[in-house]
């Protein structure tokens, strides 16, 4: 299987572990990720906060590149990226004038259809059952709290992904990997990633609530599919502990890390050793029994 790939800026930086694990997982899944050549930043939250036109034009450049490269499906693992790319597509479809204007600004054609996939869409397209068959180290006994955050599910009319209040697709994947999803209540609460730098105090509060609910419901770790969520929940834990005098040490995993792991990769190859909160220990020994 061949599919386009838009890593997005953070996978080259603070979320290198995400990038690494995706590459590994894809390799083990036998998927060929074709990177959009010379892709650029999608503008994320900055663009739509300061300039609407720009918030469409920046993603549009990458969509145009993908089309020029003849890609009909592109995985954008970062929830913010996929969200912005899809938003751009939706707005351009809804308003042809805007489309024309953007084409002119970008200097490239936007004719044609390219489907933007977030990580879960991607697994879905690949086939959860196919994935399940490929599992060599079922993550038996691992209890994960699937965390979707904001940008995967909202705005529902735009992203058209799963149930905005109680999504289940990540749970399905986790189950396929042999792990056990826990029932908890902060799946789609905001972690405040967008405010990380300027509003640390707010972010600490939001992160804390999420951590606590996951812990209360007996999770071994939180599973995410967005670099911003991960950065926040993983890196901020220390800040939270400092702020509230608590001792949270809840590992935060990328879904792709667990995929890679279950498909046979070592925690290191999956990038799990790169977290701030130690995360290798809990998963290192998983599924050894079932190893083929």
């Amino acid at each position: 299987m061949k599919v386009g790939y838009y890593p997005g800026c953070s996978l080259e930086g603070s979320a290198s572990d995400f990038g690494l694990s995706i590459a590994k997982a894809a390799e083990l899944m036998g998927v060929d990720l074709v990177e959009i050549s010379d892709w650029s930043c999608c503008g994320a939250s900055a663009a739509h906060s300061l300039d609407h036109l720009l918030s469409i034009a920046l993603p549009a450049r990458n969509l145009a590149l993908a089309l020029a490269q003849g890609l009909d499906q592109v995985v954008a693992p970062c929830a913010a990226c996929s969200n912005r790319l899809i938003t751009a597509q939706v707005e351009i479809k809804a308003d042809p004038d805007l489309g024309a204007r953007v084409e002119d600004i970008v200097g490239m054609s936007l004719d044609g259809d390219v489907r933007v996939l977030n990580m879960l869409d991607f697994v879905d397209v690949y086939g959860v059952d196919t994935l399940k068959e490929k599992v060599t180290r079922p993550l038996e006994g691992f209890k994960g709290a699937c965390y979707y955050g904001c940008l995967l599910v909202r705005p529902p009319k735009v992203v058209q992904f799963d149930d905005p209040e109680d999504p289940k697709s990540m749970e399905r994947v986790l189950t396929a990997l042999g792990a056990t999803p826990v029932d908890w209540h902060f799946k789609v609460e905001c972690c405040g990633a967008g405010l990380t730098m300027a509003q640390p105090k707010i972010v600490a509060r939001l992160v804390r609530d999420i951590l606590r609910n996951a812990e209360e419901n007996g999770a071994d770790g939180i599973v995410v599919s967005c670099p911003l969520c991960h950065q926040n929940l993983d890196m901020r834990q220390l800040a939270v502990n400092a702020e509230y005098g608590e001792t949270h040490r809840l590992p935060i995993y990328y879904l792709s890390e667990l995929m890679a792991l279950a498909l046979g990769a070592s925690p290191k190859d999956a990038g799990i050793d790169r977290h701030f909160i130690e995360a290798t220990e809990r998963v290192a020994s998983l599924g050894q029994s079932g190893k083929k």
Partner: protein
Amino acid sequence: MERIGVFICHCGENIGRTVDCAKVAETAGKFRNVVHAVDYKYMCSDPGQAMVRDAIKEKGLTGVVVAACSPRMHEPTFRRAAADAGLNPFLCEMANVREHCSWVHEDVDAATAKATDLIRVMVEKVKQNEPLYPIRVPVTKRALVIGGGIAGIQAALDIADGGHEVVLVEKSPSIGGHMAQLSETFPTLDCSQCILTPRMVEVAQHPNITLHVYSEVEEVNGFIGNFEVKIRHKASSVNNALCTGCGACTQVCPAKKVPSEFDVGLGDRTAIYVPFPQAVPNKPVIDRDHCVRFKAAARKGLPVTEVTTCGKCQEACPIEPVKAIDFSMEDEIITEEVGAIVVATGYELYEKEAVGEYGYGKYPDIIDGLQFERLASASGPTGGVIRRPSDGEIPETVVFVQCVGSRDRAKGLTYCSKICCMYTAKHAMLYKHKVHDGNAWVFYMDIRSGGKGYDEFVRRAVEEDEVKYVRGRVSRIYPEGKKLVVLGADTLSGEKIRIDADLVVLATAISASKGVETLAQKLGVSYDQYNFLSEAHPKLRPVETASAGVFLAGACQAARDIPDAVAQASGAASKVQVLLSSEELEREPVVARVDENTCVGCFCCESVCAYGAVERKEIRDRSGNLVKTLAYVNPGVCQGCGTCVATCRSNSIDLAGYTDKQVFNEIRAL
């Protein structure tokens, strides 16, 4: 030689503003055979009608065209005026220059031109009109009431007391409806069952009322005054003629864990059951989906009589020699003839399972209004003690949320459910009366308490019973430990509010009962986008429907509280009695007629007639030999749709009032 009069109405400014009436009158005056054309401010006024009458007399008019509002509005008015002046009313037609012209167009020239055309069309039609005389049909002096809730009960009793027979059909095993589930009623807090059960008994004992419970309307044929209704009596497996309602059977039934519909899932019942102690009739039915014996039979693929499994209820039945319990009972179709029908099918609550932000009904301690009624009811599963479903504890803090589903475009219901403000106030009060040191919170958007003593009632909840009202919607509810976290806002102070509740009561929207649209289709009654049945006129004909002889009562038409439902039911009942008080009905003579000279007896008409109005008429010669068989349309049965006319191959059928001649003339006039 035709002598047509044309009368153009300004309808004050309504028509005059966009249609140059004087000019239209002038032009119309020049039409062939038009001998009189005038315009006037209000044609429907007495002087206006007088103008019509006088012109008919003075100018010897043979036809009248009134250009004014929609014929649905004033056709009867002007036809009456014509009749008063000695002109056959059916020689009077209306051109709709208001609803179809002045109100929907802005350009004066265009509107004036269109008005002129519409008048020309009617002038040409009326030239072909012929005098028609109303058809008289007999009236079956019995009524059908569909639905045994408070509205249906009231309507049935009123009609029955009026001396007419009533057939009351209820789909569940007992009458009483939702009102029987309620604990107390606002604004007086009198016990619901105390005031309802006497009425239920009255129904059962009334000599004029035939009660069919556990039954549904299967098919409706005929028309006003002459309906034929097929009713499916579902197999209850209990012979009510023999059963004494002793209850021995229900005590021995091994299937004891069936969630009770009456207690909205908060309590259990047996497979053979009486829905509630005061049920009318007080006769059990076997719920075959849960009965051990029937399930066994289904598993083995055998008839239930062939299996030996269980049968305890039958053994326990003291009736001898023939037991009242009859497993072999099958559905029965009963046919009733009635002259009028009252629809009182009531409402259902919007499913809380549809509300994602409140947990999709996943959490047992988030309940709806009817469930709270059962908790508060002395006859309820907790004996009237407010205990939360999950662990039976008495809640210290209860949050009531109004407008769940209602006034919510995103959830697809834009209307206000009307009764929630009141019953929520009542719920909060009842809770406070039962749990004195408890905390009751109500989240509301607006308080709609228009009604006698209603607002005072709400104020009492706030001022005397210390119910805390918070103006704002709740965004989310989720469990945390043993508590339910309710995230709301108080828009008056601008504060975001978090309440850790033990029990949450959602005032879910009043929605039309499921499947009511199929019934509506059988009755030819129209319904709105929410499946609430449509009245004939929102203001002036609130209990009638577009389908003559069919009336509405209660929440099937819109959200209603008990007093409103009862009032409407009595209204419907009086309409029915007016109808049943006359020996025969006058019907518009708009019916099909067969030309016996040209009819070839192909009977295509028969095959398309939805009313079975086409009969076969045998033509015999003097010596009685059959010459030919022709179609004959029974004017009493024909509803005048004209489908047969357009279907007739030999062009031998015509429709009075809409003859080919008339229509072709109309078309040619364009």
